[in-house]
């Protein structure tokens, strides 16, 4: 009977070898994917208990971890949480992470490859591991000015340094307090999360970068840029400005704001922008053609995603449009949709001699011992218009604030250029109010876009100039030293 016993022994050896091979597979080869699984509470709890690095705006921490005496050793704290929520996002137990907490998770947690050496040192010296800190480009003064100036209005504001593309401010209202969602009291955190998600006002949506809206007349800046670049027009060129314009192929007439005249049958481009003349711009757009306009919008950044750190949405200029749709698109209606970030980029490119810089919000990642692990270099994205034309367009924007619809943004001692917008998205709801601005006009340091979704004032009063321009003004005042 020894032969079969030997064979059985070999079978047993094979079975045990299978156990070991399978164990190795799970515990070594599958380890990282199992640990990364969302359902894995072991990994999630450890992540949640980590001493994460801070997120900084200027010198102030807008998110940091402080020791806590519960099962998760560190509590994430967001001073001024509501103000910075669209930037920091939140770090929650059951609902993951958003914002920079999400996009820089590995650096903040200290698990990134760039922190490998540091981690090894911590391991050897038996120090609790600590994450890297994230330096944002946010200017707290501008952020605060925008946040306060928006008040209780639903909307968003973005400020960009036109020379670098650095985001100086990003506010979205209404906001939520990330502290409530990051609480170690999981039940109350879940309640806060559910409440925010169910809130019809969507406090968790980042209106500044992740939502797109019809930009209304602020889009006329793009149309103007295309006209200067490709249409052979100058600020002084006369363009037709009828009181109403029959939309080609339809029986619908396009009229101007409040049905008024733009100041004559033919006015200059500058005047047309000053008064935001719809018929004039529809005419310019029809003359330029859909391809030219679409191309110019694309050069300003429409159609592609920017600021991936915050998962910004791509703005849209529709394809395959007919003449009447082109006429509407030229004035920022129909299916044109832009994020406030995109409109700030348009102004920023105009302010920066026609050079569009790639927007960014994180300038540096620093290890716990303050060593710089990575630094963002400003990058040129495109050149939507020549320096010459950019200067002309900038002067036209200054004229809008001096003589046109944007007078509310005037600041004594600082040359401000801007453009208002009012977009009718749906007849049953209030129009959107927009304002985008650059300042100071001789050496622009800031480009701003303000968007107000649903202002609590009577409908006829809504205009970018009245509602959005004061917010832009407050932001410029905070940014520009007189």
């Amino acid at each position, binding site marked *: 009977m020894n032969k079969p*016993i030997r064979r059985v022994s070999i079978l047993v050896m094979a079975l*045990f070898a299978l156990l070991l091979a399978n164990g190795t597979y799970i*515990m070594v080869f599958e380890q990282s994917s199992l640990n990364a699984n969302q359902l894995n509470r*072991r990994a999630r709890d450890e992540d949640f208990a980590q001493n994460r690095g801070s997120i900084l705006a200027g010198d102030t921490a807008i998110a940091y971890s402080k020791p806590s005496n519960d099962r998760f050793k560190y509590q994430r704290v967001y001073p001024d949480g509501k103000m910075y929520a669209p930037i920091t996002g939140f770090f929650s137990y059951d609902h993951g992470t958003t914002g920079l907490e999400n996009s820089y998770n590995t650096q903040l947690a200290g698990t990134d490859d760039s922190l490998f050496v540091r981690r090894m040192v911590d391991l050897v010296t038996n120090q609790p591991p600590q994450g890297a800190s994230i330096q944002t480009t946010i200017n707290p003064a501008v952020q605060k000015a925008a946040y306060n100036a928006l008040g209780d209005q639903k909307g968003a504001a973005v400020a960009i340094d036109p020379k670098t593309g650095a985001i100086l401010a990003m506010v979205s209202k209404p906001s939520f307090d990330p502290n409530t969602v990051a609480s170690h009291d999981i039940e109350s955190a879940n309640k806060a999360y559910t409440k925010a998600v169910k809130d019809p006002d969507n406090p968790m949506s980042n209106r500044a970068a992740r939502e797109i809206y019809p930009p209304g007349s602020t889009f006329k800046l793009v149309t103007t840029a295309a006209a200067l670049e490709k249409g052979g027009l100058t600020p002084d060129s006369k363009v037709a400005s009828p009181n109403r314009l029959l939309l080609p192929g339809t029986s619908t007439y396009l009229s101007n704001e409040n049905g008024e005249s733009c100041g004559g049958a033919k006015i200059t481009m500058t005047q047309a922008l000053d008064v935001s003349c719809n018929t004039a711009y529809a005419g310019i757009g029809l003359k330029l053609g859909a391809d030219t306009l679409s191309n110019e919008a694309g050069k300003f950044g429409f159609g592609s995603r920017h600021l991936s750190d915050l998962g910004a949405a791509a703005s849209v200029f529709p394809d395959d449009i007919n003449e009447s749709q082109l006429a509407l698109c030229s004035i920022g209606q129909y299916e044109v949709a832009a994020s406030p970030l995109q409109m700030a980029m348009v102004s920023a490119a105009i302010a920066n001699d026609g050079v569009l810089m790639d927007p960014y919000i994180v300038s540096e990642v620093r290890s716990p011992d303050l060593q710089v692990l990575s630094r963002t270099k400003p990058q040129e994205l495109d050149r939507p218009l020549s320096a010459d034309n950019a200067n002309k367009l900038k002067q036209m924007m200054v004229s809008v604030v001096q003589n046109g619809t944007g007078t509310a943004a005037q600041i004594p001692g600082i040359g401000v250029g801007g453009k208002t917008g009012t977009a009718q998205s749906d007849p049953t709801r209030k129009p959107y109010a927009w304002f985008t601005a650059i300042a100071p006009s001789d050496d622009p340091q800031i480009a701003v876009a303000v968007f107000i979704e649903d202002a609590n004032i009577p409908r006829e009063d809504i205009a970018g100039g009245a509602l959005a321009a004061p917010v832009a003004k407050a932001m410029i005042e905070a940014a520009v030293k007189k």
Partner: protein
Amino acid sequence: MSATDNPAMVTVVPRKRRTVEMFLVLFASALSLAAYAQVDLNVQGHLPTNLTLVAVIAFVLPLLAHAAIRWRVPYADPVILPCATLLNGLGLTMIHRIDLINDPPSTGATQQLLWTVLGIALLIVVVAVIRDHRPLQGFTYTLGLVGLVLLLLPLVPGISSGDVGGAQIWIHLGPLSFQPAEVSKVLLAIAFASYLVEKRDVLALAGWRVLGIDLPRARDLGPILLVWLTTLAVLVFQNDLGTSLLFFGLFVTMLYVSTQRPGWAVIGLVLFAAGAVFGYFARGHVRIRVAIWLHPFANINESYQLIQAQFGLAWGGLLGRGLGEGRPGLTPLARSDFIATSLGEELGMAGLFAVIMIYGLIVSRGLRTALACREPFGKLLAAGLSFSFALQVFLIIGGVTRLLPLTGLTTPFMSQGGSSMIANWVVIGLLLIISHQVRRPVATTQDVDPGGELIFERPGQVSDSEETQAIPATRGTGGTADDDQPTQIHVRGGHR
């Protein structure tokens, strides 16, 4: 040496190796105790308050078993007891560690300790009272009947605990609940062994030959079909895939070993496949088990425990989180079905593999005893017990590590549960007494004709077997056995 002192009488005294066993047992106890202390240090921040008591228990219990072995079966294999001691100790430590997750701590380890005491007591009974396995051969049908009844007992209304965790494998008598299949396993192994020894010549008769394999005669298929149907009944009515597999595997293997005919193994595999396919289609329970094995993340509610176990293993990684530093409590049944993954989480791949290797050591010692055994009953019994032990370890650890569909078997000596604990200590007792009979010097004195040719034989190489190998005389003089196997001296042509 006696052989040289008196050339006419040869006395062979194999080394008993009891002192080696004692030191190994002390080492196993010390290791378990250290693990126990480490659990409290890591979880509570201080040494266990009952450390002295635990230390006394940890050393005294296995030493009692050791003393019984030294007294009654001194030639028994010296590695088996220390291995079982270490597994039992680590199991108790792990259960204690999981006890501490609850506040106040649960008392699983204390209950398990009581079962351990009972198990070791039974081992001592087996070693001291039964002492020789051969008389067990006389109870073939009694043991077989009792084994089958026990196996099917959970189906009896009144004492059945009903459906627990999808399977109906528990009975309750008063306050005690019991998994009778564990005890049945030992009884049926003995019954199978003696039955097969009796019938193996008939069973080995060739019937037809298919594809180069000699298949048994059709009329001899009766017993295998009976066992097959019983295991199918276990599968269908008790929903217990693991026990069904274990028993059928045990029987087929013993059949193959006793008849030396691969045909039986082939028939067994075919019947098993048929049973498995039937089970898959007839029982939703089996289907679910297979589905969550193949796609654990497709239905996270049904495969929750399996997914958690995988996470636990991954969390343990190569070296583990450390005793008390992991989170085995997140896996349901962490102290019973999933104790292997709890170990993997806290002791890592290294620790889990060490435990698997200790199981392997017990199995290899058992199979080695089977190889060395000179009479068919002991051979078959040792092989059967070792193989079923190995199969059980494979099925349960393979199940919790997602190598196989999960079956509700116990992890020998480790998972919480009394029936398994006492049954496995009895298995260890049986292996010990068989190994004692195997290694015990047979014919301690023999007449030696000085003119005869000396042939040295290793035990287990019975001279009339086809595997007899004469070991060259250059190996040494008789009686100077330098390994732990006794050396026998036969004298060819020396009989008068």
